[in-house]
């Protein structure tokens, strides 16, 4: 007995520990596997554009077939593939374990049905048969008959069918019966299906769903929601509250009538999972459509057709506006990979608005010119193009010539002309300048004026270097107002002996900003000055220095 008791306890302990280990591993595995892909751009009021939703020509039969083939590349029609359960094939698993019917299991890309007598591939050899039409053809026919985009019907199929059919490589016939969720509400006990058998079958489901969507479009005012403001429940549980939604178009209205809930932020963040108070029908429609067919709205997107002569248009508020240049496209923040190619017929349907020039703001602060040799250079500032008066003007702002953008004439035409840009006088402040004329004087730029040096000695006396004088065009020079002339800098001669270049000139010593004449050569000698150090200046310069008291013998 003791042994049995111990054995039983150990067995329980063993089972417990293994269970804990197993569940821990499962938890870790599932945590790893939960790839959150939150939806961040779901627009509750515009889930999909009308032009996309009702574009019945988006795919032909062959394109639908090719798409279905890509979804289910490996259909196990005869259930011969391994099921993963006890070495059984799918067919064996279905029949022996689940009690489901045996093969064939025609996948969506293999399925055919005769709408006249409801015969399907399930009774007719698993594939095509005389009188039967393919699922692709059925989808296409429904789309054409009721003016619904076949892509919408494909997404609805993925959203509504058991499995779903779009991912099942050995579907049961039962999955086709109410594959669009039409006439088969979960209104039986415990959400069990409560189906109308007269509406069963893939063909009927597809046609009825397309009919229903078209009916909503034709009777937009009959239902609980309407175009404009609506309060839409977050979930089937009214306690979860409502969201105020402005329904912008018929397609979105139709989706809300078909599935009358809007996802909350939790449901969007948890995609493809679930969240408290979440609703998923419209969320999944949006996500699946985007995943399969790229976009649900052309609004704000650049479009073109496949024609080599097609222009590129930006769709804004249901109108397509042609970009008038490649630069216009780029200036609005788009590039070629962003441009969506649509059919000629759809392009024709979208009304054309005013051309779209460049977005001037995109060029703010940039230097532009055209490829014309005579093109000026412009600075884009405050929504205008400001021409530089001269190369000197451009340089005076410190711009780098290598950064000038060469654009088409069309771009420059789009930008209003602003006031010209002269030279930036402040950039020359404290600098010496002259014009490129041989007879030009030299000027010091000071207080936004150019002050002419009265003489070469004056320039020297202010200690400016001849080598640093900047040469400007006459036009640039003319832009700078002329100030008072600049004489010599007397302190520069302090303590120096000076005389004029005229014969008979006296000799002076510069002291206290005056020139003091020596009364005689003897007087000069009495101070011990060196005659060889006497500077000879022009009479005009000498005249600039006020006369001081004379110096006699020391």
């Amino acid at each position, binding site marked *: 007995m003791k042994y049995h008791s111990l054995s039983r306890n150990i067995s329980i302990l063993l089972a417990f520990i293994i269970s804990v280990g197993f569940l821990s591993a499962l938890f870790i595995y599932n945590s790893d596997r939960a790839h959150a892909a939150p939806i961040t751009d779901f627009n509750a009021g515009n889930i999909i554009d009308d032009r996309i939703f009702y574009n019945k020509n988006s795919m032909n039969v062959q394109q639908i077939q090719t798409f279905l083939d890509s979804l289910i590349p490996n259909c196990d029609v005869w259930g011969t593939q391994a099921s993963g359960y006890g070495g059984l094939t799918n067919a064996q698993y279905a029949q022996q374990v689940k009690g489901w019917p045996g093969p064939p299991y025609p996948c969506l890309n293999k399925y055919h049905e005769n709408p006249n007598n409801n015969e399907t591939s399930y009774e007719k050899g698993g594939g095509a048969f005389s009188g039967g039409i393919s699922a692709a053809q059925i989808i296409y026919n429904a789309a054409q008959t009721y003016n619904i985009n076949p892509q919408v019907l494909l997404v609805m199929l993925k959203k509504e069918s058991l499995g*779903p059919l779009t991912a099942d490589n050995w579907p049961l016939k039962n999955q086709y019966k109410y594959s669009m969720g039409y006439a088969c509400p979960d*209104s039986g006990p415990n959400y069990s299906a409560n189906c109308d058998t007269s509406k069963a079958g893939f063909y009927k489901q597809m046609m009825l769903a397309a009919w229903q969507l078209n009916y909503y479009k034709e009777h937009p005012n009959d*239902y609980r929601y309407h175009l404009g403001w609506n309060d839409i429940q977050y979930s089937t549980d009214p306690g979860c509250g409502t969201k105020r939604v402005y329904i912008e178009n018929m397609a979105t209205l139709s989706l809300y009538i078909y599935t009358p809930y809007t996802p909350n932020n939790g449901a969007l963040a948890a995609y493809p999972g679930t969240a408290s108070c979440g609703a998923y029908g419209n969320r999944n429609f949006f996500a699946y459509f985007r995943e399969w067919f790229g976009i649900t709205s052309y609004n704000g997107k650049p479009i073109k057709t496949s024609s080599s002569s097609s222009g590129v248009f930006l769709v804004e508020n249901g109108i397509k506006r042609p970009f008038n240049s490649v630069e216009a496209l780029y200036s609005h923040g788009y590039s070629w990979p962003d441009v969506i190619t649509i059919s000629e017929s759809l392009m024709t349907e979208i009304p054309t608005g005013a051309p779209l020039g460049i977005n001037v703001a995109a060029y703010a602060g940039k230097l532009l010119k055209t490829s014309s040799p005579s093109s000026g250079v412009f600075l884009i500032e405050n929504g205008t193009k400001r021409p530089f008066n001269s190369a000197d003007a451009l340089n005076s702002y410190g711009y780098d010539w290598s950064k000038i953008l060469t654009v088409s004439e069309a771009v420059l035409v789009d930008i209003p002309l602003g006031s010209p840009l002269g030279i930036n006088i402040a950039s020359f402040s404290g600098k010496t300048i002259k014009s490129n004329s041989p007879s030009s004087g030299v000027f010091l730029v000071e207080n936004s004026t150019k002050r002419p040096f009265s003489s070469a000695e004056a320039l020297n006396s202010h200690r400016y270097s001849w080598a640093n004088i900047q040469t400007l065009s006459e036009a640039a020079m003319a832009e700078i107002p002329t100030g008072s002339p600049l004489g010599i800098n007397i302190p520069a001669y302090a303590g120096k002996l000076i005389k004029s270049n005229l014969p008979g000139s006296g000799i002076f010593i510069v002291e206290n900003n005056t020139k003091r004449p020596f009364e005689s050569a003897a007087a000069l000698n009495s101070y011990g000055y060196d005659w060889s150090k006497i500077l000879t200046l022009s009479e005009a310069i000498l005249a600039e220095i006020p006369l001081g008291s004379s110096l006699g013998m020391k």
Partner: protein
Amino acid sequence: MRIQRSSKRNKIVLIAALLLLASAGAVAAYFYYSTDGFKNSDASNVASSDRFKSDNEQSKELQDNPDNKDSAPNTDHPATPTTTTESSKKQVQMIASTDQSGNTVFIRGGVNYPVSGGSCYAQLSGPSGQSIRKDSSVLSNPASTDCKTISIPMSELASGKWKFTLHYTSNDYEGASNEISFAV
């Protein structure tokens, strides 16, 4: 005594062995799942790389659990009708709203449940206590049922505050919305 010591040591060894076994089980289970333990190991069954992510995931889910053939993912299940002692009919949730355009008042709403048949009506009460009933037909949807919008010309309504409730009734179900007010 010796026997007891031996028994204790055996227990310790046994528990250590069990813990080791559990760890091994955990590791094995992890790898079992992460390498698609329930999945068909046929390489040709692996989804092609040009399929979309959600399709691959749904395909894998179906292979891992064929019972999913009986369910649609993330279905918005409508609230189940309830029973009360006061009525033999099941009670369904209803919503209602109103808006005005031009000289017309619209009463909209429906049943948050896909019922078939039956009819709707709005029961209005006016500022002076007057009472009006407006009948409406039923429009079926896959996941709900709508009452066809009731349009009332404002000329039929006296000025002032009005209230209404929207009702649905059939042989099996009935329901009424919350009371809603509007001004004329």
